[in-house]
């Protein structure tokens, strides 16, 4: 049994222009100790998928369909309170911009130890009633390290583990006193406080300098090895995927269009969109003209009953417009949502590895 099993997940948002289907019938599996990447452009639904797993989708959005099985529990059936208990404890999430993502008026040590105390990680040190009340803002109290020494100590340990130098001192500082890279480490420390089984990282390196990016990715790798935490990494950057992930899922317009082990995705991409993505990366070897994908991402309202990528696809043919394609098995761990791989269909082009060749299937009807 896997740690996380998602089936038929769909999440919609109600907007003035109509219903946006941000996540459309998504299946995903994350096993223990595994790092899975979700890759896609903005608007592909990858962040919304992550938020849906965490239960952080608020009005005007809601999960409309699907099962999210985590550690044997079906999260779609469970109460909001249970969801809250899981968050920060067994599953946690870090976000793109650490400077915006941490509370500017609380010290780093306060924020990390808060996670510990909120989930009763350390007996005897919990969130007390004054802290939760309005009055708590006005009543002067002893500092957190005095009132909850063990949580504080643990927070400092976590900060050391993620590579923050002089953690005892820095735990007493505020977010604005940290650099971007250090702050992201602090976010990670905060996310690990509850010793989660699953860590979801939404574009964790996008806001950081390139050199820092590598450091953070290495950190994630190390942490996974040390703690056995599974990681779900959301990114638009294929370079990041290569560094960290074991398996990758490619998303387009709310759907997963391909999943594969990471090397296979890069050496043998099946879905035309994936192929297009890979071709858009500038090559370090030759100086060729970039080949971007033509067209734009659809707007996710009133999606047609057809392959979502067909309008931009070089291999599009009649079959593509005959309903939404299902996932076809194109290898032992490799799935592709493209009718080109439908063995039952004689009109499918056999080897779409020959890029640029539009299929010339003969029409049956």
């Amino acid at each position, binding site marked *: 049994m896997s740690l996380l099993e998602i089936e038929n997940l769909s999440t919609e948002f109600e907007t003035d222009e109509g219903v946006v289907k941000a996540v459309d019938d998504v299946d995903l599996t994350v096993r223990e100790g595994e790092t899975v990447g979700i890759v896609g452009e903005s608007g592909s639904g990858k962040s919304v998928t992550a938020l849906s797993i965490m239960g952080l989708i608020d009005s005007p959005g809601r999960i409309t369909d699907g099962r999210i099985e985590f550690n044997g529990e079906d999260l779609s059936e469970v109460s909001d309170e249970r969801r809250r208990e899981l968050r920060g404890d067994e599953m946690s999430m870090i976000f793109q911009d650490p400077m915006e993502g941490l509370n500017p008026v609380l010290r780093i040590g306060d924020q990390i130890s808060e996670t510990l105390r*909120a989930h009763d990680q350390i007996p005897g040190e919990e969130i007390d009633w004054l802290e939760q009340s309005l009055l708590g803002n006005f009543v002067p109290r002893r500092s957190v390290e005095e009132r909850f020494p063990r949580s504080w100590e643990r927070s400092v340990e976590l900060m050391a583990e993620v590579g923050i130098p002089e953690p005892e001192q820095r735990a007493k500082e505020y977010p604005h006193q940290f650099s971007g890279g250090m702050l992201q480490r602090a976010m990670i420390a905060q996310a690990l406080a509850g010793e989660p089984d699953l860590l979801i990282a939404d574009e964790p390196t996008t806001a950081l300098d390139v050199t820092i990016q590598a450091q953070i990715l290495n950190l994630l790798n190390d942490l996974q090895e040390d703690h056995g935490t599974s990681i779900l990494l959301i990114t638009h950057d294929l370079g990041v995927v290569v560094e960290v992930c074991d398996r990758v899922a490619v998303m387009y317009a709310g759907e997963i269009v391909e999943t594969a082990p990471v090397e296979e995705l890069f050496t043998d991409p099946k879905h035309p969109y994936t192929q297009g993505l890979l071709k858009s990366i500038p090559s370090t070897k030759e100086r060729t003209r970039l080949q971007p994908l033509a067209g734009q991402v659809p707007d996710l309202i009133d999606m047609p009953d057809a392959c979502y990528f067909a309008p931009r696809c070089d291999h599009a043919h009649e079959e593509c417009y005959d309903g939404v394609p299902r996932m076809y098995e194109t290898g032992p761990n490799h799935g592709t949502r493209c009718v080109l791989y439908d063995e039952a269909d004689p009109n499918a082009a056999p080897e779409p590895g020959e890029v640029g060749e539009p299929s010339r299937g003969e029409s049956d009807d």
Partner: protein
Amino acid sequence: MGFKRYVLKRLLLLFPVLLGVSVISFSLVHFVPGGPVEAALGTQGNPELIQELRNQYGLNRPLYVQYFDWLTDVLQGDFGQSIRTERDISVAVERAIPPTFWVAFSASVVSVLIGIPTGIISAVNHYSARDYVATFFAFLGLSVPNFFLGLALILVFGLYIGGLPTTGFVDPMKHPIEGVRHLVLPAFTLGTASSAVVMRMMRSSLLEVFSEEYIRTAKAKGLTRRLITNKHAVKNALIPTITVIGLNFGYLLGGVVIVEQIFAIPGLGRLTLTAIFNREYRVIQATLLLIAFLFAVVNLVTDIMYAYLDPRIKYE
């Protein structure tokens, strides 16, 4: 450290303003048509008496000399004598400060006690019925003239229902219960409009905070809604709200004039009014200076508190 420099800068900026305030307070007297003595004596003055008084009060000297003299006296706590009644202004002023302070202070307390919780409730339930009702009452509170409200409160609590005293002042330091009872109606009269302002500010800044990223992180940490609202959100939203509370003190200081008049409280406001009707301009000089000074100090304290509360400024 950034904080000390910030405080110092603010202090330094205070002085030119205080100087300007003193100039205006001083020159007020000298803009009175005819001159202060003439105005004080009215039709009873004959030219010799006027000249004599003018000499006595040094009014024939060049203005800047008068100003410096006056300023040095004031800094030593001496406001001189009223031309008309010859009473010692300093004594009168000193006696009038505590009532004014108490009225303004208790009005502030009222505005915080009502404004902050209602602002939070409004923001947390925004666009619900509770929010609309609260916002409507906020508008109402802003629009009711405080003298109208005062009279209405007197009518209801003083005459119809009764139970609360409607005139006079009792020092709460000496007689706490009676003192507070006498402050209730004045505090609510002044504090209502203030509450409305505080409530709206709290609401809008809380709504802004709710849309910040760190609130999403807090949810992702599995914190309860209550903890997130009261600890994470309110702490941030309080910062601009405190500024508003401080600025509002100015409004309160102005409003004491009306409230003291309605409730017959012997404070600086009432002193100013009677001085105006009695044409005791030097008294007006003194009260004006004092009130403006108090306001400036409160503003400074607010600025400092703002810097203190926001770690981004405090630890630069």
